[in-house]
């Protein structure tokens, strides 16, 4: 095991932590458009550029669609690229998200998760990136500012791996993480540069019959983003799926490697289990709410209740095996979604979790809680009631409502 690197303790909010991580990763191009609650990332980074603290080409675009297009084009030249967005901005990128993943460009994007209009709301929920579930981007969600910093550094190493070669979203809850000042341990610049290294490039066979690094280079011309007919389109989609499968392993490897330097790890990188070993009731959740729930689990444990938490850190690729394994002792659970899939059967994370557990040896009872939409607060007092609901189900064996709206004015 490598020796831990000495780190400085600084006060940063989640957005500032992201900007600092990007600075330390020696990023070549940042093309972005500011939007609440991601704004601080772009503001802070433009300060770094103005002060000459980074060598990054900073592209101010007229829209998020252009920002993602610029990122795709820059990434095609083989350099390291970052952007950030949220809510309507991410939605405007929608088309280019698919082009970027289909082109296998490892752009890293921080999404300060925010509600979508209408009605207009700038506050935190996860509707924006959950709506991009099928866009071919790796998605991880963090619990706090420290993890936001750590995950951005990890993201470049994961996305740029030649077996993965996929873009990646790091989601941080709007305001709860993006704007909240926290204590963050940060590496010296050199340690991050060494950890992330240079961007490796996969090899491709060009029309000239040469096998060359995958980048736009006048010395080795190649056609990128061509029209592909029904005879081969399907094959390229299957390749993307393989990249996702490889990402499952890579996320775990990078989590372990990073822990050896920092002393910090987030479960296995895919799922972050808290007091789940013998848990009979549990909550599955994504993002910052896990922090509050852990406090409640500690209280319940003192009262003799076998409760636990599974924070789903990686949402895409969906870690089926790891999730099933972590929840194997659980009999009754709630899955909390900070987004809503209209007309669906419960929230998106609920649907996928339930799907993963269909083949479990002992199939648990699972209920869906939609909560926190548009920044609706979820206090420790309120969240405890969800565990109480689960205890009630364990006593009666009855599930009266499978899909519930938590914190809603009824």
């Amino acid at each position, binding site marked *: 095991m490598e020796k831990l690197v000495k780190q400085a303790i600084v006060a940063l909010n989640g957005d500032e932590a992201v900007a600092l991580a990007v600075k330390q990763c020696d990023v070549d191009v940042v093309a972005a458009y500011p939007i609440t609650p991601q704004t601080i990332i772009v503001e802070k980074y433009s300060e770094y550029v103005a002060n000459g603290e980074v060598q990054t080409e900073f592209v101010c675009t007229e829209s998020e669609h252009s920002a993602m297009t610029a990122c795709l084009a820059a990434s095609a030249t083989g350099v390291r690229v970052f952007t950030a967005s949220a809510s309507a901005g991410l939605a405007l990128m929608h088309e280019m998200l698919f082009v970027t993943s289909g082109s296998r460009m490892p752009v890293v994007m921080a999404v300060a998760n925010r509600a979508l209009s209408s009605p207009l709301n700038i506050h935190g929920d996860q509707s924006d990136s959950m709506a991009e579930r099928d866009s071919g981007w790796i998605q991880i969600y963090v619990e706090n500012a420290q993890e936001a910093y750590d995950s951005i550094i990890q993201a470049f190493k994961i996305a740029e791996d030649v077996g993965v070669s996929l873009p990646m979203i790091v989601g941080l809850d709007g305001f709860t993480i993006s704007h909240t000042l926290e204590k963050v341990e940060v590496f010296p610049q050199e340690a991050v540069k060494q950890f992330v290294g240079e961007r490796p490039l996969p090899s491709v*066979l060009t029309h000239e*019959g040469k096998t060359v690094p995958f980048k736009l280079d006048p010395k080795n011309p*190649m056609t990128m*983003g061509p029209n592909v007919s029904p005879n081969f389109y399907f*094959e*390229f989609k299957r390749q993307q799926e393989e990249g996702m499968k490889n990402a499952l392993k890579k996320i775990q490897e990078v989590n372990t490697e990073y822990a050896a330097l920092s002393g910090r790890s987030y479960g296995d990188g895919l799922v972050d289990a808290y007091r789940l070993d013998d848990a009979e009731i549990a909550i599955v959740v994504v993002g910052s709410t896990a922090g509050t729930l852990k406090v409640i689990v500690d209280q319940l444990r003192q009262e003799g209740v076998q409760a636990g938490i599974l924070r789903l850190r990686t949402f895409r690729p969906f870690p089926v095996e790891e999730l099933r394994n972590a929840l194997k002792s659980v009999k009754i659970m709630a899955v909390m979604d900070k987004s809503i899939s209209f007309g669906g059967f419960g929230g998106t994370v609920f649907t996928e979790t339930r799907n993963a557990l269909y083949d479990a040896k002992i199939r648990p009872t699972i209920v869906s809680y939609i909560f926190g939409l548009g920044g609706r607060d979820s206090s420790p007092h309120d969240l405890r009631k969800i565990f109480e609901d689960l205890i009630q189900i364990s006593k009666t064996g009855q599930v009266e409502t499978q899909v519930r709206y938590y914190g809603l004015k009824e």
Partner: protein
Amino acid sequence: MSREKSWKEISIAGVCSKSSVGFMTGDWKTYTPIRDVAKCTKCLTCVMFCPEAAIKWSPDIGDIEFDFNFCKGCGICANDCPTKAITMKIEGE
């Protein structure tokens, strides 16, 4: 017929492993440009306007040449010819 390559054998992201020079897009055409040599002043307007670069100036012969493997018969050359030296005819007429 040879087996087509699997998804594991092809380069990622649709990078072309063959040149498009092999695709004879001239097969698509309905109309063919016919030049009246007497009217042609070799001004090369057609060379500049051809969207497929299928009309070339050949210095060896001091004249223009049509590459019918790639001429799609769009008629832009005929439309832009200042002396109306090019007319579009249905093939075989």
